[in-house]
């Protein structure tokens, strides 16, 4: 599987997954929404990262789970796109 490398496409996929699985119906949530304000916790984060592995084909190592990368879906998507470009497929 060739990992997706476009940050916008990745952000859209992440938002769709979040809306379908753990963000409250009717809540305003887009790629620029703050993850902490949206109530994303460790459990939701792991679900999100496993989704990345499964659907986008990129494993995000712990060292990349920094505050900056986890500000919003857009920043997380940018990090994932960089990892994809650096050819780090799911192991």
């Amino acid at each position: 599987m060739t990992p997706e490398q476009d940050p916008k496409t990745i952000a859209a996929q992440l938002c769709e997954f979040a809306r379908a699985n753990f963000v409250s119906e009717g809540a305003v949530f887009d790629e620029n929404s703050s993850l902490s304000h949206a109530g994303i916790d460790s459990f939701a984060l792991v679900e999100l990262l496993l989704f990345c592995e499964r659907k986008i084909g990129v494993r995000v190592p712990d060292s990349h789970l920094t505050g900056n990368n986890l500000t919003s879906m857009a920043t997380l998507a940018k990090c994932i796109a960089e990892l994809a470009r650096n050819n780090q497929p799911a192991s």
Partner: protein
Amino acid sequence: MSNLPRQIRLAAGDYFMHGQDRRMRREGLSGNVCSIAMRLGKGLDVERLRQRMAASPVLDWISRVRVVRWLPFFPPLWRTVAGPRQFFFEHMNSNGAWQGPWPLPDFVAQHELHAGRGPGIAFDLVRHSDGTHHLFISWNHVLLDARGMELLLAHLGAGSANGAPAVENLINPKQLGWDFRGWWPNAKMAHGSVKWLHESGKDPLFSLVPPDSARRPRRNHYRVVSFNDQEAARIDARCRQFNAGFRRSHFYLASSLRALHELAVRRGNQTGAYLIPVPHDTRRRGSNGPIFSNHLSILFYRIEPQQAGKVSSIMAELGRQMSDQIRDRFPQCCMAALDLFKPLPLGFYVNHLGKPTRGKFATLSFSDSGETCTGMTELFGGKILDVAHLVPTWRPPGLTVVFVSFGGKPSALLSWVDDCVNEAEANGFEQGLRAALLEEDLS
């Protein structure tokens, strides 16, 4: 007043909590009853609070609902009874002698809050002579989990404000009607979690519960470990150090576990692993409901003593086990197993749950309730000065740690049963917890 149903299904988490309530009463404790103690500043409008409580269909329904089972081996249900009994009590404390939150005043501690006989919830308002108040809310855990109580508080405090939890947020629509069709898929899902627990129980587990299990009166003890502004900032810095912004609860659990390991080593434990079930709220983030019932799934962590000496190594292990379990859908499998066992009579159910671990059940009960009273600064004119959550510990495991945050400042509630942990060990545990949260790893 509202079209709330007379009867709904018990969630798997509700029956589990009912089982724990039964187990606690059998062990001589006073039941699976939680309390919140709120200290309120001057200006509380008691009449408005009284009116709000009397007018709330949510509170009316919760006070009238009871656990029933029509026939043996039929799933238990929630069913409302016709007339409510009193659940709001007012008291005067003119001499101001009691300042709380622990020990609870006798009139709070002596409520018989039973989910079968009801009402399972009580509000005690204590008026102090200086114009301040204490509001105690006590409830049987079978009715509400911690998040549910937060939503109920928001419902009461916000009145009819837009976006506040309201009557349509009370129950989960999935709990309406019967669900015999769900049993077979549950049976298939449950198999994996039951097998894991049996395998985990084969290897040695550390337990704080003494082997002597003669029935006699026992007591829950509580201690609130508070942190000042500098310590709260230090905990934030430590979370950043461990890259735990979104895994703050892992840092809290790792610190608790290191403190427990020190206690266990002092008791001579060398090989017994630590088994910790951690509940997880399954409501959607930011949602206003459901208020009623227990909406949780469970992650089970097993930490070997060799890994338990350092916060960093425990956190690495927690992260690995969490990912593995979510990948394997283990939390859903656990809840499927609990759902499957619901038709079992309560006594049999309680014994059945303890079987995989040969009665040890867990080493530590842990939860991170997050921020309490979010967005609430006052209640009917009385400024919320302080909030303490008192969560009873089950036996086993005999020791509970609950982290909660108020106004952005964390605190930890330690709760233990007197024959499982003595006062000196509780002091040692508190020191160990503070050291793990605030200081560098020693080893």
